[in-house]
């Protein structure tokens, strides 16, 4: 097949999609990068000259030393990400095995998928109903004669809400790996003298890694960037990077600064993703979907 | 026009003299380091059962795929039914391929699979129906027309693949190790069926295999391939009884290979002593003598006569129909087969471990290999 026919075959399939991606994914991303070096102008729009002011402001680099305001916010977002990931792994990892070991696998999977497909706003605001002053939790505590707790709005509510929202995101890819486990490897390990724990660690755990890592990425990344959950369950008291970005593009109208914040968040995420891609290759990426 | 020899008890075949496939100087490489075909010249005659035999990597599958049109040669010329195939895509060639993994369309039933090629030719519905019916009968799967491939056994899938190719009445049928995935008995049964089918239809079959026994059983002619070249081409008996190289001698069946130097026009000096051969040699040149284990004669007494030596029975392998003896002839290893015929006569004896016996290598059975 000569070069010309190859191109005429290739273009109709790849052409439209590539154009779309370039226009609506690449260009906007580059715009964010570019805008982060601009400044807000008096008319509410953006103007040059190019400057690092937004980044300086974000990292708090000033004449009096480092102002940690936004760094703290970034730190809190990362903390939320890590804690959520850890919690979902601790909760979800045994659960994946619970599904695999059960005779009612399909039913259980359905039960996990249902919340996963339920609109995530519904799943988040439900916790308002549970944690509010006259909410379900306090009603329950009241029944046992205990004092009410004020968990809404609070960081606790945000954490619980985030863990709750992203738990299925870990279970599902992890289960895909758990389902495919070759248990004969465990038998071989036992045969060769490994006890229950070591057998599991050496023969079973490595087989769950692809799904586990995919799940971790699918939890960590959205958790770090969330603003809805902190907005609804933290009601203004819980500010994360996502909230900063949303505010700058909303009420504050400082799109330049918002772009810088967005770019920092994106850089953090893409760094993690690049590491994963190096490790897992193309097949690994497909597992993410 | 060569015929298969009567006295060997095989069918008499006279494959038509007209050449239907011709390859000249075909070369192909897949990357700078791997040469798949290194200059192949051969001709296949209409109506013959032609096998490409060789170990993995010898290029036989590449050659088949070039004939089918899935690869183009880098150099050389390929002619099918007189037409140069350069640039001709697979769907316009008068050949059909039976795939090694069957490649049946999973979303179609047996009938539609077989009908596919006919429908591509836009044949009218009732003709398609008739031809598919004929093909189903031909390979003996008439009742399976509505089944899906995943409901079939390996042997059944094989027949469907065959029917799907045959129904198009190609000039040449290409078969890529079609029996490889089947168990022993089924393979043997299908080998006979394929042979009979080929003879009945009079089609040209080009058959790729690495199983030398299969090639010997089924083919009219065999091309033994090695590292991208045709090592030897000819009738099965010719290849077996008169291998032209050490490779062919060892690839087709087992062979005793005895190195030596020619002492005179008829004698070779070897580790087993001086052996007489039935060919004229060039004095001083080095040769390898090949003799098949079943041609080696064993006995307890040793009248003096050429091509005899003593050996000790080192090991005996019992395969049911045969006894295979591993012999130590003064440090040189020989293999000899005798039939377990239970005949109590000299020449049909059975021997024991460590027995010292006489080994006779008859002159007419020593093949001279010029290597």
């Amino acid at each position, binding site marked *: 097949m000569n070069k010309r026919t190859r191109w005429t075959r290739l273009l109709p399939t*790849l052409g439209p*999609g590539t154009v779309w991606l370039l226009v609506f994914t690449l260009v906007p991303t580059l715009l964010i990068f570019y805008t982060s070096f601009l400044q807000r102008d008096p008319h509410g729009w953006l103007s040059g000259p190019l400057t690092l002011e937004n980044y300086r402001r974000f990292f708090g680099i000033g004449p009096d030393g480092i102002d940690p305001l936004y760094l703290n916010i970034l730190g809190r977002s990362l903390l939320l990400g890590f804690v959520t990931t850890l919690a979902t792994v601790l909760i979800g990892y045994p659960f994946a095995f619970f599904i695999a070991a059960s005779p009612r696998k399909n039913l259980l999977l359905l039960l996990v998928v249902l919340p996963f*497909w339920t609109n995530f706003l519904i*799943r988040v605001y439900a916790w308002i109903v549970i944690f509010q002053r006259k909410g379900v939790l306090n009603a329950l505590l009241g029944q046992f004669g205990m004092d009410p707790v004020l968990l809404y709005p609070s960081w606790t509510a945000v954490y619980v809400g985030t863990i709750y929202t992203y738990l299925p995101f870990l279970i599902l890819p992890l289960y895909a790996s758990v389902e495919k486990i070759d248990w004969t490897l465990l038998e071989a390990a036992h045969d060769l003298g490994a006890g229950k724990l070591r057998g599991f660690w050496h023969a079973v755990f490595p087989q769950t890694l692809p799904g586990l890592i995919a799940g971790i990425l699918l939890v960590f990344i959205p958790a770090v960037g969330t603003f809805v959950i902190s*907005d609804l369950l933290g009601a203004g008291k819980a500010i994360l990077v996502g909230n900063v970005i949303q505010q700058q593009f909303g009420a504050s109208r400082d799109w330049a600064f918002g772009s810088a914040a967005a770019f920092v968040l*994106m850089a953090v995420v893409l760094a993690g993703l690049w590491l994963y891609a190096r490790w897992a290759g193309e097949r690994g990426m*497909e597992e993410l979907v | 026009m060569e015929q298969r020899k009567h006295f060997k008890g095989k069918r008499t075949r006279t494959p038509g003299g007209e050449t239907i496939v011709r390859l000249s100087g075909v070369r192909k490489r897949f990357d700078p380091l791997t040469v798949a075909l290194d200059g192949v010249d051969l001709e296949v005659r209409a109506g013959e059962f032609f096998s490409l035999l060789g170990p993995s990597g010898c290029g036989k599958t590449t050659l088949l795929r070039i004939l089918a049109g899935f690869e183009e040669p880098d150099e050389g010329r390929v002619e099918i039914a007189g037409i140069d195939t350069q640039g001709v895509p697979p769907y316009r060639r008068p050949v059909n391929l039976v795939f090694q993994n069957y490649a049946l*369309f999973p979303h179609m039933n047996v009938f539609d699979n077989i009908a596919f090629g006919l429908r591509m030719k836009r044949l009218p519905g009732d003709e398609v129906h008739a031809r598919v019916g004929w093909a189903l009968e031909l390979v003996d799967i008439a009742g399976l027309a509505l089944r899906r491939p995943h409901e079939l056994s390996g042997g059944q899938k094989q027949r469907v693949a065959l029917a799907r190719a045959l129904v198009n009445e190609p000039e040449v049928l290409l078969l890529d190790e079609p029996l490889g995935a089947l168990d022993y008995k089924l393979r043997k049964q299908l080998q006979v069926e394929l042979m009979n089918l080929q003879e009945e239809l009079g089609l040209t079959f080009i058959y790729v295999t690495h199983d030398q026994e299969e090639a010997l059983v089924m083919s009219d002619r065999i091309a033994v391939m090695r590292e991208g070249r045709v090592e030897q081409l000819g009738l099965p008996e010719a290849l077996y009884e008169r291998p032209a190289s050490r490779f062919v001698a060892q690839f087709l069946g087992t062979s005793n290979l005895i190195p030596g130097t020619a002492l005179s026009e008829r004698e070779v000096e070897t580790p087993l002593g001086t052996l007489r051969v039935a060919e004229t040699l060039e004095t001083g040149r080095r040769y390898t003598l090949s003799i098949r284990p079943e041609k080696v004669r064993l006995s307890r007494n040793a009248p003096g006569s050429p091509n005899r030596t003593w050996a000790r029975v080192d090991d005996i392998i019992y395969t049911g129909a045969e006894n295979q003896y591993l012999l130590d002839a003064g440090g040189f290893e020989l293999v000899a087969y005798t039939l377990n015929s239970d005949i109590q006569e000299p020449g049909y004896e059975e021997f024991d471990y460590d027995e010292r016996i006489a080994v006779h290598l008859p002159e007419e059975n020593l093949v001279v290999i010029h290597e």
Partner: protein
Amino acid sequence: MTTRRWLTLHGILVLLFLYLPIAVIVVLSFNESKFGVAWHGFTLKWYRQLLEHTRIHPYVWNSLIVASVSTFLSTVLGTLLALGLARYRFPWRGGLLFLLYVPVVIPDVVMGVSLLLFFAWVQRAFDALHLGLTTVILGHVSFQIAYVTLVVKSRLAGLDPSLDEAAADLGAAGWERFWKVTFPLIAPGIAAAALLAFTLSLDDFVITFFTAGPGATTLPIYIFSSVKRGVTPEIHALSTLMILVTTLALIAVQRMQARR
């Protein structure tokens, strides 16, 4: 085996955890009382109120329009892209793949604001693409396309290449091979991808939040702004209906898969 016992206990607790919030909402949607969680009696009045509040109807409509159009566009574009990726090797393949993964893994916020920024620039330069349903659709396609491509691509990768060769050998040229052999075999994958895209669109909040203009409110946007003002049983009723639809859809998909 105690491991199994613990596992089962853990499993049940996790399931309770997963369904507690959902159960709360469903139950409260039938509660007579407007505030608080004390049970005051069973009623359907909130559902009646919901159905009578015609101002919600456009939101439902918007969600469906956006989902349908964007799913159609992204499925077509994504399937073509997957075909191209599976079939050809070309120098910018790696770059294209990376670009494809960006919408999947990037935080929603970043994608949302980047689109907002992009549309704003276009508005300034060409006076086009003002925020409205169109921009929402454009935004949705931009992340759906990635999912569709990846799902279909993985389906294609699982196809036996010798099937295509067999079809060619039997006389089928390029397009005919695609329609008769390749397409039927990837059709389930395309359907699954389309379903995924549709769901993602219906469910999306963040991207819609940033790309929607007045008159382009979808259901999730309505729920968000409503909940910020205060949680009402009417919202519970709406949520329960949405949960019901999701459940029915899931069961339908399960049935479809089981039949195959």
